[in-house]
């Protein structure tokens, strides 16, 4: 998968997500939030990044075998790329609809799988790209603007 194009990357780090393991769900998002807070980013940037990263992380844990999160901080944007190895999404338009979910009972009992994940990710990203290949996996690229 291609890395986001940019001229001046100021920070880059990758994180691994284990599919199916809810014990560690949220750890990557918590780490990324800590990094952004330490770098003194504005509250709304940190908040948006935390939401889109958490929802993506939960999706990987819920549906995929494994995934990687690539955090890239540029002078003007924070980019969060999430690539998973999993079943892929058959119908992206349908998956983007608020309330649509393919989550099983176990996932729903934990309070996930309400069909809000991808919808929230798109809502809280300043730019959002999704691509998916059946039987291979899904790639999300979320961009959060630092300057208004």
């Amino acid at each position, binding site marked *: 998968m291609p890395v986001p194009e940019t001229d001046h990357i100021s920070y880059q780090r990758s994180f691994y997500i284990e599919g199916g393991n*809810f*014990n560690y769900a*949220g*750890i990557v998002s918590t780490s990324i939030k800590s990094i952004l807070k330490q770098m003194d980013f504005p509250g709304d940037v940190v908040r948006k990044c935390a939401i889109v990263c958490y929802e993506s992380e939960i999706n990987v844990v819920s549906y995929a075998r494994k995934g990687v999160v690539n955090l890239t901080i540029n002078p003007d944007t924070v980019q969060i790329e999430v690539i998973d190895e999993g079943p892929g999404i058959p119908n992206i338009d349908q998956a983007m609809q608020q309330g649509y979910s393919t989550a099983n009972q176990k996932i729903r009992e934990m309070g996930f799988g309400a069909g*809000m994940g991808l919808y929230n990710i798109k809502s809280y990203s300043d730019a959002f790209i999704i691509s998916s290949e059946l039987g291979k996996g899904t790639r999300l690229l979320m961009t959060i603007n630092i300057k208004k």
Partner: protein
Amino acid sequence: MNLATIVQELSLEVRCASENLKNNVTGGYTGDLLSEVMANSHEGNIWITRQVHQNIVAVASLKDHAGIILINSCEPTQDTLAKASQEKIPIMVSNLPAFELTGKIYNLLEKKD
């Protein structure tokens, strides 16, 4: 208003991170769907829920909640307690159902503000 006042007024039982009862409460959010809480709750909120598993700690931590109150005498799991202690997120237990607890906390916050 800080958490300690709410704990005292509503006779909540504190299960962990009691050192952070000084946390200021800016408002509250009631819900069991984690995505909804992620999207709509705010920093400093008290989160009222019946979810007891450890993933609530990540949500509360990511959203900088003041703390979590479990309703209907629901008890947090051991994993949840361990993680919440580590993240310093106070977890409290109430014997009230969500509707009554939310109403009481809403009134307390309104009265003080």
